[in-house]
């Protein structure tokens, strides 16, 4: 960064009056597309927002995750991640050539690699730099760092493929100093995790100004606003990007990108009725619900240029609904990158104001992508970009919250979407008339594949398996959040989510902070809920265990009353019963037993429907193993249902939630007919061999 720019950045920090730590970066970097390297000079001004004198600094050097097979990342991933595979011999790494205090001591020789998570001495993804004198409370330090980054072939999110480059996690990035009491920190210290297979972000907010020099034929996109592009006269062009209030910076370059831009026009995209509805739902004035315009930039592969409209619509839908629910998107731009064929490892990623999506050459009309991936990655602008939870330690707080929010946008904007099924590149979902899906059903279905693999709350690298990480970071928290919404009600949930988002924008919450926000917003103590469904692997399963319905018979025996003693014989009783039967006055006793088959406890409603159309509803705290209910009515019971509205999305078995007096084989017949048809087709095809 030029010195004057650095000064302006610092001034803006001081004027903002924040005492939060800030990491302001000025980087000038030059891409060598032949060697697949970036040579950079970084000026970092870091402000100590704590009351602690800070004796050392810690940095992420994430590109070293790809340096050799001994890195923690490679050991954990086995060279395979997110459906992609590491390409042999295309190692990636970052070398710090010089690290010095601006105008002061050269600290290059003092740097040491540390492995705070697993003690892996071979891991090179975190360094510690002891300082000659500590950074005083409220003080700041400016460092000058020269580095060279060697890109790997695109594998885990970052790297090159042909002449496509995605620069993610590409520069030395300072960790987060957590003062005592912040998040889970008992004592003050650096929170600077190694790079793991399943975790990405935790960093301080700050302002970035990056000058990126590339050969002039390259089309470039990056975090923030492009301020200028200067031709250098040597066949290269330097692009300058600036962005404040972000915690990372990523960029991409490829000569053949097709670039499209369009403005998200808030006035046009949000109708007056939608604005009124949302202000009413959240109890906020119109002005507060209003959104701002955003410049949408698409960088698409030439063969996907025909899908620009779909990308624009998805981005606009995401800007609109995330903005209406949680607060307007505060940045001026959002850049959506479409990686090329063979560079899929870079797809589906989120960086501040810069996301990567992914689509196919032919995409079915109702296929859930690219819309799903665009909305999801945009969603991370909120859950990760703006609310900076710690993805290493609480991945579900961005992936899970985002799965929940993404689902709400997709189900609203794209009802009837289907899974993209394709054969030889041909989309088949429409041809096969696959049933439309909802995000809720997919979250729940995925959760049911391993409902008790782990507690939901674990550190990202401490789940039993990679698939358990995925399940517990995405779909299960998605289903958990839906259950929370069903428990609180739509309005209460919307208010709580907005309150949480607003409170923690540009800050670092932990899950207890979310619980506190929910409790405060709703005025309820919801700890019981999170104890069950976040801090345990207990499964919920409520069931109708048994229902009986018997005619009530006249009581027999000797009865003392005001009119003296009366004896009812069996014959008399039978006669009375027959008389009642004839006059349709017979009473029926319905008994139902509801059981808690799972370990998790959740209060449930139970609905009883009777043949004459009457319904009865009872509430049960769901605590003890079972509860019994009895009704005496002049009608027989038709059905019993526990949790009839399926509020408890996490219930592992909805089929046993209800009982009906009359068997129905319609659905079984319908499904059997379909399966039979397909089996016949397979056998008839097989018969061609005979």
């Amino acid at each position, binding site marked *: 960064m030029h010195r004057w720019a650095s000064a302006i950045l610092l001034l803006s920090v001081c004027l903002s009056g924040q005492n939060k730590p800030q990491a302001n970066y000025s980087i000038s970097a030059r891409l060598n597309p032949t060697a697949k390297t970036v040579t950079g000079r970084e000026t970092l001004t870091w402000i100590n927002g704590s009351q602690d004198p800070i004796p050392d600094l810690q940095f992420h050097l994430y590109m070293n995750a790809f340096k050799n097979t001994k890195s923690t990342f490679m050991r954990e991933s086995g060279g395979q991640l997110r459906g992609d595979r590491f390409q042999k011999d295309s190692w990636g790494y970052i070398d710090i050539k010089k690290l010095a205090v601006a105008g002061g001591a050269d600290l290059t020789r003092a740097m040491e690699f540390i492995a705070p998570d697993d003690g892996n001495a071979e891991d090179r993804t975190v360094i510690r730099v002891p300082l000659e004198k500590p950074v005083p409370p409220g003080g700041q330090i400016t460092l000058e760092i020269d580095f060279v980054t060697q890109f790997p072939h695109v594998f885990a999110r970052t790297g090159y493929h042909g002449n496509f480059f995605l620069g993610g996690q590409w520069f030395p990035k300072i960790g987060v100093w957590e003062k005592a009491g912040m998040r889970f920190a008992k004592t003050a210290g650096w929170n600077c995790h190694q790079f793991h297979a399943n975790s990405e972000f935790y960093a301080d907010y700050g302002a970035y100004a990056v000058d990126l020099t590339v050969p002039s034929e390259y089309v470039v996109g990056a975090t923030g606003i492009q301020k200028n592009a200067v031709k250098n006269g040597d066949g290269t062009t330097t692009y300058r990007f600036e962005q404040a209030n972000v915690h990372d910076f990523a960029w991409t370059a490829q000569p053949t990108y097709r670039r499209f831009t369009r403005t998200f026009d808030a006035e046009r995209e949000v109708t007056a009725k939608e604005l009124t509805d949302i202000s009413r739902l959240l109890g906020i004035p119109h002005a507060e619900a209003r959104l701002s315009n955003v410049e949408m930039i698409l960088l698409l592969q030439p063969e996907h240029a025909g899908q620009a409209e779909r990308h624009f619509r998805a981005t606009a839908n995401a800007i609109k609904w995330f903005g209406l629910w949680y607060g307007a998107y505060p940045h001026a731009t959002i850049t959506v990158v479409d990686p090329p*064929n*063979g560079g899929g490892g870079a797809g589906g990623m989120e960086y501040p104001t810069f996301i990567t999506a992914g689509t196919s050459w032919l995409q079915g009309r109702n296929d859930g992508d690219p819309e799903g991936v665009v909305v999801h990655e945009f969603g991370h602008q909120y859950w990760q970009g703006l609310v900076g939870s710690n993805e290493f330690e609480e991945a579900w707080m961005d992936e899970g919250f985002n799965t929940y929010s993404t689902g709400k946008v997709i189900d609203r904007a794209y009802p009837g979407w289907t899974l993209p099924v394709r054969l030889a590149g041909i989309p088949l979902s429409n041809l096969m008339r696959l049933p439309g899906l909802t995000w809720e*059903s997919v979250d729940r279905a995925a959760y049911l*594949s391993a409902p008790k693999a782990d507690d939901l709350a674990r550190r990202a690298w401490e789940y039993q398996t990679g698939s358990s990480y995925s399940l517990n970071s995405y779909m299960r928290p998605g289903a958990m959040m839906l259950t929370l919404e069903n428990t609180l009600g739509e309005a209460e949930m919307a208010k709580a989510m907005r309150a949480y988002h607003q409170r923690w924008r540009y800050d670092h919450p932990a899950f207890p902070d979310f619980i506190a926000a929910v409790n405060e917003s709703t005025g309820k103590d919801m700890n019981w809920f999170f104890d069950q469904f976040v801090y345990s692997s207990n499964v919920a399963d409520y069931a109708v265990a048994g229902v009986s319905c018997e005619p009530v018979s006249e009581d027999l025996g000797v009865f003392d009353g005001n009119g003296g003693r009366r004896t009812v014989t069996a014959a008399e009783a039978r006669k009375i019963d027959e008389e009642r039967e004839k006059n349709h006055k017979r009473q029926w006793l319905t008994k139902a037993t509801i059981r808690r088959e799972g370990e998790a406890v959740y209060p449930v409603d139970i609905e009883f429907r009777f043949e004459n159309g009457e319904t009865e509803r009872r509430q049960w705290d769901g605590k003890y193993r079972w509860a019994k209910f009895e009704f005496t009515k002049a009608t027989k019971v038709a*059905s019993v249902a526990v949790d009839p509205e399926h509020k408890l999305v996490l219930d592992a078995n909805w089929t046993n939630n*209800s009982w009906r007096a009359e068997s129905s084989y319609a659905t079984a017949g319908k499904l059997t007919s379909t399966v*039979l048809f397909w*089996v016949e087709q397979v056998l008839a095809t*097989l018969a*061609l061999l005979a």
Partner: protein
Amino acid sequence: MNALAALSAGGRQSMRLFKITALFYAMNLAMAAVIVAPLAVAVAGNLSRSLESARLFSNFDVGWLMEFSYQYRGGTAVQFAVLTVVVGLCSLVLNTFLAGGAIALFEREDDAFFSASARYFPRLARLALVSLVFYGFVAALFGVGSRLIGKASESSMEAGPWIMLRWGLIGVAVFLAGVVNMTFDYAKIVLVTGEARGAVRATMRAAAFVASRPARTLAVYWICGAAALGLLAAYHGLSEFATQETMTRVLLVLVFRQAYVLFRVWARLWTWSSEVHAYEAAPLPVAEPEPPIPSYVDVTQGAAADPETLS
């Protein structure tokens, strides 16, 4: 007899002998039912007394599928997979058995179906095994081509050209598999007419026949194939309207689908009948007449494939 005449004669004959189609269809249905029955019982047991059945009737829920399979995971799922494979193999064997009767009747309508089936089964079974080598060859060719395309596309920045190339490869593989299938149809006919009894010899003779009359044989086979595809397209077009909101409509769709399966099976038999007509109209000259086959030989002596051992 040209291809169209063979197809027309085959069409008439296969309709005249529609009971053969019915038999193949019934067998296919029965085999499918064996696989589907335990599934149907399990689904009915799972849903019939639950209100979920009403919800799922109108809106299929993938969550229910997971619930259902979670309950039947492990041993039950393995048993079901074994059952499916066994029934699939049985179906293949039964189809081979019935093929002998069908082709014999197409050749000589007064033949007795089941005794012809029994008579030709051992030869046709050996022939089916020989055919696997050729199908395997086509599959291997496809696998190699597919892998080469996959490798090349990995380093490319575009997917489109490679997908189109893959379509080309699939086209070639389907054509080759069709040629193998057709050649072995004629090999079956050769075996049934008794011009050769060994599977290999019959294959060679069928290949020679196909090679000497490529236009006619390919036309007969691929016109039938195209008709089957047309039938599929018609089914697909009509199934747009085959919604199943009521139980009556579920039954109607069931009938509609079964009609499609029936006609699909018929298309295969029409192919055979047309091929019999095409073959009989211009058979290859019999190079070395083979000695008559004692009726017991096929069933008891595997060596019967070699005519030398018979004399």
